């Protein structure tokens, strides 16, 4: 124990141990994903079949040129050998490097996910606290119903409803896209961000607010809170400095683990709002069975989940010494 009373176990060995443990996991994921993608009917050449101008000889020529005539094992080993060297290959769709295609799209997704994260937290924290403080009251009951609705809403449906009301009906917001083609400024970017960010944030805000409410109810009934009240500590300080601080640890863990879900949720949101991010790229690649892009996307998200889990663990340890 340090002089300040917190535990400071070394972080680096933990990180290294977890990283080493993750390697076989990532390999296993890559094998499974590769096998699943290739097991799905159709393939990268399916899209050519609709065009009568593309002859069977062309299909065979394209199959050879894309290396699809090789055995699956050979294709996997080749992909893996290149991937670990940092060569993510070329898109089967437009022939450009996969890394370039993903880097082009990543900023839009990060912008959307980060904004949604902030919006969800900004909504969830005050709602969760107030619902806990007014437990059983009308505010608690109303937010409970709203949270249930938020968790239950299909993202695409909610997105279309917002488009129809705010964009088509009232005309106060653009219905989709990341920006206007011309006269792009901060206001224009924010206007385009509002609807997709709200849609993506809604589910998580609903879940997190109820999660925080439950944690806060547990903490507010503990003796140190009662002692604080007895000593005349103002309610606001008690709530924020003492109760919320204790509830923040578990919430942070949930938020970090859900951050990966935000990326997967972005796939649907980006489709509904024509948002030019990684989700749209994934949908496109899936339709065209663009294996290199799909593999890269799924590997990046798998690694992101592992990393976020590790960060959540470390953060939890830091905030709650009991977990050490």
């Amino acid at each position, binding site marked *: 124990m340090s002089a300040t009373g917190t535990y400071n176990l070394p972080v680096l060995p933990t990180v290294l141990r977890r990283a080493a443990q993750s390697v076989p996991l990532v390999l296993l994921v890559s094998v499974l994903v590769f096998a699943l993608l290739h097991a*799905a*009917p*159709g*393939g990268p050449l*399916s*899209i*050519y*079949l*609709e*065009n*009568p*101008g*593309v*002859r*069977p*000889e*062309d299909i*065979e*020529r*394209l199959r050879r*040129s894309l290396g699809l005539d090789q055995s699956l094992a050979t294709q996997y080993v080749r992909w893996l050998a290149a991937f670990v060297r940092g060569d993510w290959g070329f898109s089967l*769709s*437009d*022939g450009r490097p996969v890394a370039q295609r993903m880097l*082009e*799209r990543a900023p839009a997704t990060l912008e959307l996910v980060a904004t949604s994260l902030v919006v969800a937290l*900004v*909504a969830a*924290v005050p709602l969760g606290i107030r619902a806990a403080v007014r437990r059983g009251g009308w505010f608690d009951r109303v937010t409970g119903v709203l949270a249930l609705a938020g968790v239950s809403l299909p993202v695409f449906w909610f997105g*279309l409803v917002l*488009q*129809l009301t*705010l*964009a*088509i009906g009232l*005309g*106060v*917001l*653009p*219905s*989709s*896209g*990341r920006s*206007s*083609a011309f*006269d792009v400024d901060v*206001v224009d970017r*924010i*206007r385009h961000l*509002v609807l997709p960010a709200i849609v993506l944030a809604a589910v998580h805000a609903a879940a997190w607010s109820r999660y925080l409410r439950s944690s806060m109810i547990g903490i507010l009934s503990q003796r140190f809170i009662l002692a604080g009240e007895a000593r005349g500590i103002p309610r606001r300080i008690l709530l924020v400095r003492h109760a919320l601080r204790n509830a923040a640890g578990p919430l942070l863990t949930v938020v970090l683990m859900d951050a990966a879900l935000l990326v997967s949720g972005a796939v649907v949101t980006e*489709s*509904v709002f*024509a948002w*030019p*991010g990684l989700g*749209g790229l994934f*949908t*496109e690649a899936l*339709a*065209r069975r663009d294996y290199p892009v799909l593999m890269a996307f799924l590997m990046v998200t798998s690694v992101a989940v592992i990393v976020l889990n590790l960060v959540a663990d470390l953060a939890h340890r830091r905030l709650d010494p009991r977990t050490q």
Partner: protein
Amino acid sequence: MRFAGGLLGALMLAACAAGERSGASNDLLIVGYDREPDTMNRFSTHILEDIQTCVVEGLTITDEHMNVVPLLASEVPTLENGGVRLRPDGGMDVTWRLRPGIKWHDGVPFTSADVKFTVEAINSPDYNPESTDGFDRIEGVDTPDSLTAIVRYREVYAPYALQFVRGALPRHLLEGRDIDGAQDYNRNPLGTGPYRVAEWKTGEYVLLERVPGYWRGDSLPAIRRILFRFIANTTTRINQLRGGEIHVTALVPWDKYREVRDVPGLTIHRMVGNSYEHVTLNERAVEAFRDVRVRRALTHAIDRELIVRTILDSLAPVINGPIQPVSWAFTDSVARYDYDPAKARALLESAGWRDADGDGIRERNGHRLAFTLITQAGFAVRENVSQALQRMWREVGVDAQVRLVDGTSISGLWFEGKFDAMLHWWHMPADPELTLFFASDRTPPRGRNINYVNDDSLTRLLYASDRTVDQGSRRTLLVAAQRRIADLAVEIPLYNVTRLDAVPANLVGFTGNPTNAGIFWNVHQWKMRTR
């Protein structure tokens, strides 16, 4: 709490600021496009070439009536004008005379050397174009002068007039280079058309801007910029159209027609297409389909008029064969199978299919008359039509199970022949070739004969039509082939895939186009009428 309220308030305030929502004008036309192009190289892309058509012009193009008309060529070569010569050795020479004075956008003259380079590049093992169709039958190109290219074919090739419909590759830019990897060209092609690519913002849009000094006249095109926004989600695209955020969208789905037909300032242009919806009957997979009486019975059992009237809102006409009314080879003088359930039942009885056990489904030799009908998932009209077919067949004692399959998977299934029956459409080539779809030796992987029909007389007719250059003689052969296909009831034709294109009501010069040339084929003639 107050902070949260403040932030949301700020967001809403920003939201309410004035935004981009202006009508179409001669300065800017915004097109909602259903997908981002893979490449702007017309020879490499496997997506409709609407955007590329505005930039890269062909030697010919198909007009709104599907006639092949000259573009960069001064005329379409024919036997009559001496542009086509049939050689005694069975080959064919086609002489292309180029329009004088045409220049690439960089100012370099467009010449016959570019035509020759294009043929050589496409036939080179170093380049992977989408299709080598026709090019692989060319043995060489002679260029006696800069405006004449004589294309020498090893054999007679009837669709020669469309050989260079995708234009030509600029020799001075691409010679000696890896064309597949030439991203400068593939992202921003050099063309001779009315527009060039000003910006391609990945995932968002392609912006085209007018090229000064366009060869048809300095005043053309009238519209200064065209913005193609990529909006893959159909509902979102239609919402943008309704909200005025986009001005044009091609191929409005039929089930969205009612949502857009009354939008002020919008016209829904309706045009008979060069595609047709039908049911393919896989004779290899289902033994019952090999009996022509069963195929005829299945066709008689379907009330196509009712389907069109109810599910399709009368937007598409019933058709009776694979060649569509927009084609010069079309004939309606073929056997018809009108809705007649009594006749369907009689045909099935005569073929030995009877309902012996009284369960409503016919049997023969212990086998039930049952099959699976696959169709594309997520396509509301098609899902509804498949259910209607299921019900109508059930009424004559046939059990069809509907299975919905995603768009990519379904292509794989039919290419491998792993289906019983399929509800789908074919987009027919601009040249009315049927060989690929019905000749007995063109079953997958050699072709698209996925009915697995095997009829010698039909196959002979089809190959004869491929070797006939004279349009009148070729039509005679294709008419005979259409009659044979109808007599055999090879497949069940349902309705024409009518195009619905949404454009501004004050857009002048828009004609539409039923072929892959797309609606932008005459974009240089488009103009917004101002009050």
